[in-house]
């Protein structure tokens, strides 16, 4: 288990380092003078001079990267030119909102996707299987921002049941928080539910066809116990590992969902920063997203390892 952990970490660290290099190098894509471009709307020579100094723009690229990365490691993601705030403060403020949204969406995805996948694997080739696959295909193909708009049309404009936008902190009112998060979480979880359904179905089909499931049947095990005790735990490992990869999709989708429902999270921060040409904030958000994503995958690997007795004991 410990060896496995070290192995995974050893893979995650270079991944993040290279990712940070890519993100840093994005600056080079800016047209014209980097300092002028980085200053965004501001044309104040003082600001430009500050940026030139802050980003050591007179130094060669590798040196600049090293200085920047050193800052990032100490929690210095730069300054938001627009908001006059350290980027790290913005991240700390917005990240929990997006994480809540992502976790609720993952919950939606699991609650819908996993049982549907189990059902369609167990009832393989029946009408229920066809229906479940059809629903999954719909979930994969419907753009989530459009689904969000349709839901606002129905539940906010027509029925008036749920707020179309606005965010309430769970510390203020948990019920209002959940009411405001219900539609965004469903919309965001929808596509992931489809993917989880497909993963679950494939994993369950593999396990249900295995020799040990036949052994269990030969022992006289009931169908329900067969699925829950013998098949599902063994199918869980691929479901967890593949499901974790969907966190990327979740973080991508959150950008759009937050835009549709005006949820003040990470995605909204990023899109606003893009329009404000607040490049330091864009970089900060991207690097934090990548880190979050890698850490979530690492956590999923650990969870999968914990489920797998071969790794747990090793």
């Amino acid at each position, binding site marked *: 288990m410990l060896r496995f952990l070290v192995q995974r970490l050893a893979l995650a660290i270079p991944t993040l380092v290279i990712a940070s290099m890519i993100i840093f190098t994005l600056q080079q894509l800016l047209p014209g003078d980097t300092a002028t471009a980085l200053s965004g709307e501001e044309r104040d020579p003082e600001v430009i001079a500050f940026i030139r100094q802050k980003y050591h723009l007179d130094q060669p690229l590798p040196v600049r990267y090293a200085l920047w990365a050193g800052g990032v490691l100490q929690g210095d993601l730069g300054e938001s030119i627009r908001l006059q705030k350290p980027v790290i403060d913005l991240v700390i403020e917005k990240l929990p909102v997006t994480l809540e949204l992502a976790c609720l969406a993952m919950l939606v995805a699991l609650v819908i996707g996993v049982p549907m996948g189990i059902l369609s694997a167990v009832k393989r080739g029946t009408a229920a299987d066809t229906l479940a696959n059809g629903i999954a295909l719909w979930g994969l193909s419907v753009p989530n921002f459009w689904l969000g708009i349709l839901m606002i049309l129905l539940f906010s404009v027509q029925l008036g049941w749920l707020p179309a936008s606005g965010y309430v902190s769970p510390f203020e009112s948990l019920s209002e928080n959940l009411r405001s998060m219900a539609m965004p979480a469903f919309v965001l979880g929808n596509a992931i539910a489809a993917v989880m359904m497909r993963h679950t179905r494939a994993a369950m089909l593999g396990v249900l066809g295995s*020799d*040990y499931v036949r*052994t269990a049947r030969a022992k*006289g*095990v*009931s169908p329900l116990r067969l699925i829950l005790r013998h098949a599902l735990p063994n199918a869980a490992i691929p479901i967890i590992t593949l499901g974790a990869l969907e966190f990327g999709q979740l973080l991508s989708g959150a950008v759009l969902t937050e835009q549709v429902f005006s949820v003040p999270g990470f995605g909204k921060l990023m899109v606003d920063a893009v329009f404000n040409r607040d490049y330091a904030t864009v970089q900060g958000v991207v690097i934090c997203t990548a880190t979050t994503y890698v850490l979530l995958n690492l956590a999923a690997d650990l969870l999968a390892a914990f489920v797998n007795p071969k790794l747990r*004991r090793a």
Partner: protein
Amino acid sequence: MAQARQTLLDVRDLAVAFDSEGGAVHAVNGVSYTLAEGETLGIVGESGSGKSVHVLAMLGLIPRPPGRITGGQVLFEGRDLLALPERDLRKIRGGQIGFVFQDPMSSLNPGMTVAAQIIEPLRIHLGLDGRAARARAKDLLDLVRIPNAGARLDQYPHEFSGGQRQRVMIAIGLSCRPKLLIADEATTALDVTVQAEIIALVQELKREIGMAIVWITHDLGVVAGIADTVQVMYAGRILERGPVDDIFRDPRSAYTLGLLRSLPDLSRGRAGRRRLHQIEGAPPDMRHPPAGDPFAARNIYATPRCLTEAPPLTQAPGAAPGHLVAAWYDLPARLAAEEAAR
């Protein structure tokens, strides 16, 4: 000897098919036989002969669809298993009929401890739970000669060697003192020395428990050591059946003869070494089973009648009682003629 005892299993005209894209595959085509209490029946055949499928099918263990039973009856202690609802069949599986499967690596659940897997049938069929079940599980591991059984109960299958895993499988198969143990290629995946150990173990346990055994294998050599009766299957049919010694001494089916000739004869030593015989040709396409004797196309002794009409399984003339064969040709006569010509 077997005839004196009560009939345990009576298979009547069992037929099984699998639906596939190119049409139904007729895997088992009218198999009938009986098994007495305490008898050991060795069923021999190559893969696709229907030897495993018909046994799995009678206990509802083939995937359905695509598999389906197309006819017949299987009486276990007088009750037709094919007519039983799944719920009642579950009570028989693992309770009165135990199983040992081929690959002990894949046949044990990798995510459950050995104890949990042994206790499962104890709880389902005997209502044992808690400490009593655990004690019984330990006894079972002792029974199959796994040293230090108490300490190994909470280990996972991957912590056992291949031979030990097969011993665990046997412990599970025997856990509820079944009247019948079905061993499906139980030693095929094991090393030769481990194979011998497992066979010896099963024979010992049979003396202790007295269950009937159906031992399914492609290896006629394994059958020689364990079975009372041997049954040779090919293309979903029984071609020959009889007491083990008779089958080896006096085979009446050309297919059995071919199988016997492909066995290395170690008793003859170096001097007796001869080129191992290989049966020419391939088994028939089971989507369109041949009308006549299914082995006819590969049989040098086949008569024209073999190609058109399927021979019934009947007492072989001049052979020991209970030695049955499905053949239109007279194998001993043909062999004698060959010998004379030489």
